[in-house]
């Protein structure tokens, strides 16, 4: 059992080579690696390394997208084995772009980075009403709610979601993360969010620290 496979799997994710991922997963399973090893030490390691490079502006949106596709290919191939091994996500995140805002590329990048860090992500899409977030929290019982807004005119809806969670008595059950081009740390503090991050990779790191706390 050579750990070279894990390194190659990580590299294949970073390069966005879904076909290589497929072949390496098959090879790894044939060599008796566990699905958890292939997932955590191969696929997720690769996505995390790519996230660091994205944060450092060494790679760009296209590279993140093809890496996320390769990651998804791998996790799909491992799905059955992961269930059999009892491997669970490190947490659940409900994510969405807030009401009035149709922008989704930033939100999608955060979703991909979260999945690449081992989270289960419930993506509510764009233009999501506060009550929809509340319903999703009731249904999925996430540890984190992540709210995206690209416009100065829609960032106020992030406050609306927090108020809706408070009104529903659910605020204490979740951490709220916010992000988007006009968002700042000061604004996060003002509206009572638990965390703000400036980029998708930092969001995933923050989410890990929030569920570990």
């Amino acid at each position: 059992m050579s750990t070279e496979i894990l390194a190659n799997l990580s590299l294949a994710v970073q390069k966005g080579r879904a076909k290589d991922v497929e072949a390496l997963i098959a090879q790894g399973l044939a060599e008796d690696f566990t699905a958890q090893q292939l997932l955590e030490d191969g696929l997720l390691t690769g996505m995390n390394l790519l996230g660091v490079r994205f944060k450092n502006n060494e790679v760009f949106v296209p590279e993140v997208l093809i890496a996320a596709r390769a990651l998804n290919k791998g996790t799909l191939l491992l799905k059955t084995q992961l269930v059999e091994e009892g491997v669970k996500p490190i947490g659940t995140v409900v994510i969405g772009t807030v009401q009035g805002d149709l922008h989704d590329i930033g939100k999608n990048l955060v979703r991909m980075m979260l999945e690449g860090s081992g989270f289960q992500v419930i993506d509510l899409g764009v233009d999501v009403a506060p009550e929809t977030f509340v319903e999703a929290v009731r249904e999925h019982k996430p540890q984190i709610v992540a709210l995206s807004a690209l416009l100065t005119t829609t960032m106020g809806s992030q406050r609306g979601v927090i108020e809706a969670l408070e009104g529903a008595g659910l605020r204490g059950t979740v951490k709220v993360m916010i992000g988007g081009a006009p968002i700042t740390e000061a604004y996060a503090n003002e509206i009572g969010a638990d965390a703000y991050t400036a980029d998708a990779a930092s969001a995933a790191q923050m989410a890990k620290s929030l569920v570990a706390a």
Partner: protein
Amino acid sequence: MSNKQAALDVIHRRSTGAGVFWSGRPAHDTIPLYAKEWGIAPTAEAIYETLQDDCRYIPIGGYRHPEGLAEWNPGWGMERNRSLGAAGCFAEAETMAELGNYPWPDAAYYDFSETYAAIARQSDKLVFSGPWCTLLTTLTNHFGMQNYFMMLYDNPALIEAVTERFTDYYVSVIHKFYSGAPTGEVLFIGIDLGTQRDLFLSAEQFRRFLLPSIRRLIAAGKQCGKQVMMHSCGSIYRIIPDLIDAGVDILHPLQAQAAGMAAAELAQYKNDIAFCGGIDAQSFIVNATPAQVADEVQRVYGLLGPNIIISPSHEEVLPNVPAANMLAMASAAKALR
């Protein structure tokens, strides 16, 4: 009073110091707020007059397809999700041949008579006009944003072919528009390339997939005797030298909070290009006092002037920008020497 000559001097980078101002365009919901505050008619033009704008942006109109089709139809033959990144009708294509049924736009369907008439009414202003040529957005709409970016790797030949086809069309519209009159002084094109942190795609990918088309658009404008102003939101500092080399005369809107786009960082290019914008609209003019706005106008002008049109860093003025701050920006710009 507007000062067209001073504005012309700025765009030709020969200004000796007169302040020039463009307020951008008030969003639909902004107009009644400003009108009420200032006691003027609820029209964009009344706002421009109140602010003594030196410039007008008059987008082209008059696309009249015989069957009533829009110029672009990214949801052709499909149900398209309304998110901005949703997959479009080119999402599944592998070759140009598969796109044969798409209703490609045709410049022949344009009737610019109303645009020409609107420009004629602004003869004492510096007028930006022409097709917006929003190339990257048009591409991402038709493929879907995520699909487009992945296809740079998966099927670059198709991306290049579609980009070429779209560019052919935009160039034909430019030539048709400028074959009539009056057309204003500036071809204003808008290709959003940046995020808050950096480019969407690498500078190398930009140079391969988009820059050749941008060069063609600029060349078409120059052939028609126009100065070319290029808009891109976001952080585009990596490619400003490419844009200067491609012939961009004026860079807009200088999104001040985006990485590498602060006035102090852009000042290195002040001898190579004129500017339009630079007064932060993401948060500054939303929250500042009028006195702070006036100070910021002077600071930005000191760094980037004299060849700058003072303007918000986003052309659409949203309703959360206080009317008093727009007045302060206009007054401070007019006072510049």
